[in-house]
């Protein structure tokens, strides 16, 4: 009996030692700048991280892509320094930051358009109105075949493709096309993997789908992009120009980075953000997005200098965030 007790005693000792070791303060992760968030913004941030690796080798950067929502969760916990976002921070997320004493500011780094695409063999449809898109994608949609959209079009079922519910593109599309209060239909191919959508549409003559503009740019020869008519009888195709000039409405959106202002006090984080703002125009274009307009770039630089000169009195200046679609 005593022996058994001893055995258990030593076991308990070993276990508690293990806990004590693991419970003590954790050394740094080795990364100076930790970024997480939107998978849409990821390619830009990755490009920035790659460039800064060559320019300033002593700044160590990690980038993850848990989605805007997932990134914001970590951001609110103070686990990351920068959150990539394909939308503005939600009030609930801002609330969490406030509770945890996290102050932040944000910069607009690029625009992204949502491309509505069909198969290249589709020679009947060049344009859809936002109203038609809404009819196609709303819950219990009466539209089953192309003929339902237009009498002259083939009597074939429309095979629909779209991103999954975790995607920021999905949120944006629902917001811009369906509007508040209309639910999206079910029973079509949804995937978080944009390639699944691209391949599906490229192989299916009667397909229709939407995804980020960058994926269309990379697969231009396999897809046909539709012009979208916002309802004024003036359909616009997504291009670099129409997205930047916001004439490709309503399917374009701004992309942001949110910076934790506590982290921002670190010179290396500052350097990273500076580098980001200086190079985002060229890099976002390279990876298939649309650079922000000149005046926003200047505004970003102003905001940056204000923040570095110790002017972090305001936590969040939101006046410019809502501006892009105005």
């Amino acid at each position, binding site marked *: 009996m005593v022996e058994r007790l001893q055995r258990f005693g030593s076991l308990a000792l070993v276990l508690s030692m293990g*806990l004590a070791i*693991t*419970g003590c*303060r*954790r*050394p*740094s*992760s*080795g*990364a100076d700048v*930790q970024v*997480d968030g939107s998978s849409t913004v*990821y*390619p830009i*941030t*990755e*490009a920035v*991280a*790659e460039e800064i*690796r060559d320019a300033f080798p002593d700044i*160590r*950067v*990690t*980038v*993850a*892509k848990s989605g805007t929502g997932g990134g914001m969760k970590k951001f609110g916990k103070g*686990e990351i320094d920068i959150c990539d976002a394909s939308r503005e921070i939600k009030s609930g997320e801002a609330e969490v930051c406030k509770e945890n004493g996290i102050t932040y500011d944000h910069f607009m780094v690029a625009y992204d358009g949502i491309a509505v695409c069909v198969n290249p063999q589709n020679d009947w449809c060049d344009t859809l109105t936002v109203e038609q898109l809404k009819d196609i994608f709303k819950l219990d949609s009466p539209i089953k075949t192309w003929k339902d959209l237009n009498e002259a079009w083939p009597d074939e079922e429309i095979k629909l493709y779209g991103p999954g519910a975790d995607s920021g593109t999905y949120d944006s599309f629902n917001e811009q096309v369906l509007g508040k209060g209309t639910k999206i239909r079910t029973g079509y191919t949804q995937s978080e*993997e*944009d*390639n699944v959508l*691209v391949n599906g549409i490229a192989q299916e003559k009667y397909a229709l789908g939407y995804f980020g503009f*960058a*994926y269309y*740019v*990379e*697969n231009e020869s396999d897809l046909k992009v539709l012009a979208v008519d916002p309802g004024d009888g003036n359909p616009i195709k997504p291009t670099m120009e129409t997205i930047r000039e916001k004439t490709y409405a309503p399917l374009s959106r701004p992309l942001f980075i949110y910076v934790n202002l506590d982290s921002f006090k670190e010179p290396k984080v500052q350097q990273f953000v500076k580098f980001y703002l200086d190079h985002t125009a060229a890099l976002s274009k*390279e*990876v*298939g997005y649309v650079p922000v307009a000149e005046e926003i770039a200047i505004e970003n630089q102003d905001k940056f200098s204000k923040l570095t000169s110790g002017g972090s009195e305001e936590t969040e200046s939101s006046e410019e965030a809502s501006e892009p679609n105005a």
Partner: protein
Amino acid sequence: MNITAEERAYMERYRKHKWLLSKCFSVLCLAAMLSCLGILLLLLGSVLYRGMHYLDWQFIEGLPSRNAEKAGMWVYLIGSLWLIGLTALFSVPLGVGAALYLEEYAADTRWKRAVQVNIANLAGVPSIVYGLLGLGVFAWALNLGHSILAGALTLTLVVLPIVILATQEALRSVPGSIRQASYALGATRWQTTWRQVLPAATPGIMTGVILAISRALGEAAPLVAMGAVQYVDRAPDSIWSTFTALPLAIFEWAGRAQPEFHDLSAAAIVVLLAVLITLNMGAALVRYRFGKHIRW
């Protein structure tokens, strides 16, 4: 006994029928084997065909890049090696110890049987569940962060049941007479276990461990769940580093818009397979080397 012609004909038919049936079955089995092999060869062939032209030293030691020509898998490879190294370090003593206790020490009580059933069940739990557990326990509760250490501990949870079950199997295959003989010579239980049973079981244990490590090497879901990142700029240099791993590279590249990255993904699969095959050959070697010394 007289057999009528009718009976003889019947038996003849029966024999033919039997022969046909037996032939059919063997053909079916052959077909099953061939289709398995075919699928495997198709997979390997397409991966090799697509990935081969990216496979060179520059691809192995290159850092991540948005440019497929420059992109390499060094950080992913090293991340994976760190992970499986630490996982082996944690899971072998724990797993073998647990198995030794269950096989050599524990009395066959209801309690032991309950533990046994649970271990077998745990081996079948989807790894994503362990990933979420790892996130909650290691990353948050124990404050290890999204570090390699937390990742390795998570993978340890995934493979521990496999190690325990394999070790138990290996221990059971050691004949009882060995233990009896050892006791008869006055050896204690510790001496018997350490000097007789464990060496005899080593080939089996090693096989189990290496299979478990191969499993850990291929896991992506639990790592993503517990917070592995997609881009790190350099290979990790301590157990506290933020990390990424080989399967994540495959997943990440396969999801890119540019078709060149899909070939890069295939090349990464080839590297992953190469590491796996190396591990398995190591297992075979160990089994052979240790197996030679065992005579009974």
